[in-house]
């Protein structure tokens, strides 16, 4: 019996060492779920682009690769989740870890459902729309070859190129000013939040000072009550002693009365005789 217990303990210890040696399955599952979430967001963004002028064969190919990537991630995370679940059943782990694993399983189910929804939408749109082949591809390559033969460019074409470049610069300036305005507005909002956080900080400091002062008051109250307790205890003992002395006084008084009674009786008898 005792040898069997020792053997069982050793096997548990070795198993726990093995578990600690490799990566924690719960952490691995959490990391996998995070990666799946990120990949599903990317996939949804690509699906939203289907049916727009940006819908190109390259986009379809990227969509396909992303889908395969998500499938692989789901397979890996599912295996890790199963492993973590087995550990929960075999080894007596604490309740918080079981709760964390159950929560991870629920998160995994949620992200799988979202991926299936996005996948269905993707299939729907892939059949509804054909990829948009940009017409500018051929002129673009022609323009590149045109640039390669720069010496043959006519002054008119060169002026047109300069004009196009100037419009592009104007467009970029417009975008820059727009983004700067957005950033400035966001900065103002963040400044307000910062000032509010500063106010809350001051309030917390004031609260700390008040609580500290009241701590001193409570200490005073405590000492007052302790002193009152001691004084009351001493007074109680004094009163007890006084009570005992008073009982003795009563006895002495009775004794004196009895003696006086006897003396009076004797005197009366003597006088009567």
């Amino acid at each position: 019996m005792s040898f069997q217990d020792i053997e069982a303990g050793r096997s548990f210890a070795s198993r726990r060492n093995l578990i600690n040696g490799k990566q924690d399955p719960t952490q691995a599952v959490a990391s996998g779920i995070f990666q799946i979430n990120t990949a599903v967001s990317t996939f949804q963004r690509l699906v939203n682009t289907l049916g727009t002028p940006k819908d190109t064969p390259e986009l379809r190919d990227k969509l396909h690769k992303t889908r395969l990537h998500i499938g692989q991630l789901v397979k890996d995370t599912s295996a890790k989740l199963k492993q973590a679940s087995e550990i929960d059943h075999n080894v007596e782990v604490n309740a918080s870890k079981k709760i964390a694993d159950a929560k991870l399983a629920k998160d995994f189910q949620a992200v799988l459902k979202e991926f299936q929804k996005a996948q269905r939408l993707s299939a729907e749109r892939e059949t509804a729309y054909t990829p948009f082949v940009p017409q500018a591809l051929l002129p673009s390559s022609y323009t590149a070859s045109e640039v390669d033969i720069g010496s043959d460019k006519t002054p008119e074409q060169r002026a047109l190129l300069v004009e196009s470049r100037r419009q592009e610069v104007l467009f970029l300036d417009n975008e820059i000013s727009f983004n700067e305005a957005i950033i400035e507005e966001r900065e103002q909002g963040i400044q307000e939040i910062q000032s509010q956080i500063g106010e809350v900080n001051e309030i917390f400091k004031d609260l700390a000072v008040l609580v500290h002062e009241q701590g001193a008051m409570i200490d005073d109250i405590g000492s007052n009550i302790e002193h009152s307790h001691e004084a009351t205890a001493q007074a109680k003992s004094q009163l007890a002693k006084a009570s005992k002395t008073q009982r003795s006084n009563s006895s002495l008084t009775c004794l004196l009365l009895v003696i006086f009674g006897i003396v009076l009786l004797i005197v009366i008898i003597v006088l009567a005789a």
Partner: protein
Amino acid sequence: MGILYALVGRGSVVLAEFSGTTTNASAIARQILEKIPGNNDTHVSYSQDRYIFHVKRTDGLTVLCMADDTAGRRIPFAFLEDIHQKFVRTYGRAVHSAQPYGMNEEFSRVLSQQMEYYSSDPNADRINRLKGEMSQVRNVMIENIDKVLDRGDRLELLVDKTANMQGNTFRFRKQARRFRSTVWWRNVKLTIALIVVLLVIVYVVLAFVCHGPALPSCF
């Protein structure tokens, strides 16, 4: 007030629009659609009286809204981005071949809902939501300060009362000690009186037995 008018168009063709008030925003919006230069993706804002027209053009689709000048730019452009995504997700490629006002029956309701959401719901903007939450925290902390001050006042009262109680118990102890002393002295006096009475009785008995006050027969 927030966003008052919204419009979705392709080039200069209006596909859907919604107006929250009776203004000439529609006419001005059409002028802006025709006036926007170039064909590139762009973000621009035009000012008109107290209102600002924010325009966002992406992938050949133009989304426009008219907002109060107090609404800033971040929320109107977030609104435009949201409308653009919803429109593309709903209609897809059909945008490029649609008739004027082809989507107005369905999408004007979406425009109305989103205008309401971005105009009045603080959750539409993360910074505004954070600002609201910080205001709540500040209010709660101010209440906490008030409650702690009340607690301080009561603690001061309690300090005074316990100090009084301490003084009273000291006085009680002193009086108890004095009472014990008084009772002890009374006991002492009674004991002495008893001894004296006993001595007197013994003397009288001896005087009687020895036949005289000076006890002549015994000595």
